[in-house]
């Protein structure tokens, strides 16, 4: 009996509902109990010297638990002592035997959870050298993104050394006890640099046509195979489409050649991806519909004999289950859904899908990595704090009657966490539905409807934890006097406010949330006042329906509250929809024919408009003094503290919930 043969999924609801996900598959000579793979995910949780830390260890342990016997991949390791292959300051290293004990602790943690351990080799190439003045690649092609370093062309000697470093690092992975070996060749990392006509202009045997450009990959596969032997399955991740037409990257047909060459070289499984970090089209954010990229898995299945796995916009189990049944996919791979909820597949298996914390595909995780910060998740406050006892939900030392004012994301998050700890939690919401600002926000176009999933998650979690809901009940000072709770959490959110300009009291001035919920009529020429996420959402919503929209931002940037890895998508859409943007401007006057916009150096601009929408917010704190006067424990969270993003609301809610 192998350690993985304990899995019998047939008795679980998920095993019956998704039979294709929970059936075994053979990769090379190894049988995997199910079709689930946690994909390699950089987390910046290791030391800057490349050693594994407790934070990184507990992070991976949770994901290993989540895959319920499937494959759990550690983040890609860099393999050279100079650090040219290092793309992230907290990336794990494997350039010396001294790293083996740390790597072994990762493998052991994965095995302790009954999962199959997968070890990834990742030389970051063109996006590497995070601690060095230059990075390396096949050719010295300039960078388009300023965050990356200039590229130094590798000599043939450099290439030979690099291949040997792959083999040596692979051997260390096996010594550490890993069961599968994986090579990363995606998104702009070194192997993809050699494969692409965009970044490989060499004229020697490592360049030229697509066959020549595959040489480095093929030699690396051979070297790694020699190092690990025939019994260890070998996986490679490669792009099916680079999405780099604008700079002369590979065609999809050339990409398929790389797939075939990898299979011929002895790969046992291929992970299909698309796009580079330099691609100028969205690939993994929520504006891309779920399942959109499955056609590339199908292309790979048709071209190759080995199993095909795929991540990227496959966030719900129904899609991969059907894809496997249809014969276009073999393994469901994911990282971000399991950053958001490490136990996601386990919950699927146990029939608790409503308890899955949904990833909203915002890419905050990526944004943090590129700013040399530890990973953070927009919706999962515990992410990267798995090892910290202060972040765990533990029983309260004394049960309290907790009154939560407001049924938005901050209040809901706080409510179920506090209830899980044993508090008597009563959540009051003045309207008759929970969700707060997520409800209008999820009406905005380009995938924002996925935000609504948070409400469903919170509803399930609150009900399970025994939160008492008081919907349609406005909390007044009298109610607080009457109930005398031990603690009050003010999570009443923010209210949309009108500005000081003359004319804000006009009949043509309306609120952003009323527009998003179709509660009011809007003219054809619209001015939106407020350049943060609510303003962007309503501007796109109206522009999508053909309105002429002008967006006024008082800030220097539009979408200051949107994370940097996502905002460019909104800006792109605003530009495509010809939304006129004024930054560092405010409204001076509103009339029934339009507005006067005034910029920070006092230029006044007339803008025609028949409707003006206000999308600026101020915190709702009117009960604060009442609670203080009563000497009741008070917590201000979410937008009621300062209007910010959904992420801030959730993190505030969780942190307050565990400390009440």
């Amino acid at each position, binding site marked *: 009996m192998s350690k993985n043969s304990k899995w019998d999924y047939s008795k679980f609801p998920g095993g019956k509902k998704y039979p294709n996900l929970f059936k075994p598959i053979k990769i090379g000579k190894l049988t995997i109990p199910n079709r689930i793979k946690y994909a390699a995910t950089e987390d910046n949780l290791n030391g800057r010297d490349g050693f594994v830390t407790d934070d990184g260890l507990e992070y991976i342990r949770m994901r290993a638990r989540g895959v319920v016997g499937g494959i759990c991949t550690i983040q890609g390791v860099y393999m050279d002592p100079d650090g040219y292959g290092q793309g992230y300051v907290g990336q794990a290293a494997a350039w010396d035997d001294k790293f083996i004990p740390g790597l072994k602790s990762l493998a052991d943690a994965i095995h302790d959870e009954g999962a199959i351990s997968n070890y990834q080799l990742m030389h970051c190439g063109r996006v590497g050298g995070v601690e060095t003045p230059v990075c390396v690649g096949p050719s*010295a*092609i*300039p960078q*388009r993104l*300023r965050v990356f370093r200039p590229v130094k062309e590798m000599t043939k000697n450099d290439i030979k050394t690099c291949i040997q470093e792959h083999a040596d690092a692979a051997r260390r992975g096996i010594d550490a006890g890993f069961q599968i070996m994986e090579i990363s060749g995606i998104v702009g990392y070194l192997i993809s640099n050699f494969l692409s*006509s*965009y970044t490989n*202009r060499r004229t020697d045997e490592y360049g030229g046509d697509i066959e020549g450009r595959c040489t480095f990959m093929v030699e690396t596969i051979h070297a790694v195979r020699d190092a690990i032997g025939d019994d260890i399955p070998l996986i490679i991740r490669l792009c099916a489409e680079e*999405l780099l*037409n*604008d*700079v*002369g990257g590979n*065609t999809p047909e050339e990409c398929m050649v790389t797939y075939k060459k990898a299979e011929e070289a002895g790969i046992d499984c291929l992970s299909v991806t698309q796009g580079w970090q330099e691609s*100028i*089209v*969205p690939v993994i954010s929520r504006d*891309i*519909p779920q399942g*959109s*990229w499955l*056609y590339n898995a199908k292309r790979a299945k048709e071209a190759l004999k080995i199993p095909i796995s795929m991540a990227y916009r496959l966030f719900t189990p129904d899609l991969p289950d059907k894809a496997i049944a249809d014969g276009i996919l073999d393994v469901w791979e994911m990282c971000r859904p399991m950053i958001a909820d490490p136990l996601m597949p386990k919950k699927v298996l146990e029939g608790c899908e409503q308890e899955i914390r949904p990833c909203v595909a915002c890419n905050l995780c990526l944004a943090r990595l590129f700013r040399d910060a530890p990973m953070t998740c927009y919706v999962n406050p515990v992410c990267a704090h798995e090892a910290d006892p202060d972040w765990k939900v533990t029983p309260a030392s004394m049960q309290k009657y907790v009154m939560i004012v407001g049924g938005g994301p901050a209040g809901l998050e706080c409510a179920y966490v506090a209830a899980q700890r044993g508090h008597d939690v009563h959540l009051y919401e003045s309207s008759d539905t929970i969700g707060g600002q997520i409800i209008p926000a999820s009406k905005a176009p380009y995938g924002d409807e996925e935000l609504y999933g948070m409400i469903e998650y919170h509803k399930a979690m609150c009900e399970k934890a025994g939160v008492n809901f008081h919907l349609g009940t406005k909390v007044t000072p009298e109610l607080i006097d009457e109930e005398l709770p031990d603690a009050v959490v003010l999570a009443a959110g923010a209210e949309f406010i009108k500005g000081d300009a003359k004319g804000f009291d006009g009949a043509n001035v309306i609120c952003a949330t009323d527009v998003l919920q179709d509660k009011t009529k809007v003219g054809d020429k619209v001015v939106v006042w407020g350049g943060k996420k609510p303003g962007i959402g309503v501007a796109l919503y109206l522009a999508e329906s053909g309105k002429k929209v002008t967006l006024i931002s008082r800030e220097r940037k539009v979408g200051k509250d949107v994370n940097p890895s996502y905002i460019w998508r909104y800006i792109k859409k605003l530009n495509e929809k010809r939304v*006129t943007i*004024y930054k560092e401007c405010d409204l001076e006057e509103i009339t029934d024919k339009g507005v006067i916009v005034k*910029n920070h150096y006092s*230029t006044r*601009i*007339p*803008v*025609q408009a028949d409707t003006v929408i206000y999308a600026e917010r101020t915190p709702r704190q009117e009960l604060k003094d009442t609670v203080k006067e009563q000497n009741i424990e008070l917590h201000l969270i979410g937008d009621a503290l300062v209007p910010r993003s959904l992420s801030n609301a959730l993190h505030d809610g969780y942190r307050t919930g565990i400390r009440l």
Partner: protein
Amino acid sequence: MPIDPEKEIRTLMKKFEALQNINRATWYEWRRAAIECAQPKFKPIDLVLKAWEIVGHDTAKAYFGMLDVSKPTFLEDIAKCIVMSSTMMGETAKVIKGENENEFFVQWDRCPWPEFARRYNAPMEEDVLGCDKWFQTVIEDINQLFNTKVRLETQKAIPRGDGCCVRRLTIEPTDSLTKHKGAKQVLGDVEI
């Protein structure tokens, strides 16, 4: 033609803001160049050319996002980028089509730079060589990134006494120009 005051002002503001940023960037570009070049008996022209080379690299980076090698208008778009930069700096410039799609000209009918050179007692030829260095650096970087063979040649220069500046842009056919010709990036039912 009726004037759209909103559009006029918006365009003006955009240009003004860009100019402010260029102004600031220029200061630092010059500072870098001076640090790199300052040594006993150094020649001012070396400093000027070094500075324009640094500016050229930064300009090229700004152009990268506006160019797409898979589009048939690639060369014309480079010419348009140059005109855009020039007009932002207060010059009057336009794109003129050549004999075929592989040839475009940029013509400057007005340029305030020689006047400034005169004001600060700098040689006129330095102005021409500086401009050339800037454009050649931009073109070199474009060729490197897009794997193309674009050439730029200065045919007339106001500082040399010509009535206008004229630069000829040509391109040789390469694989990168043709490999994605006509291809549309399609995602499911959505064109992206």
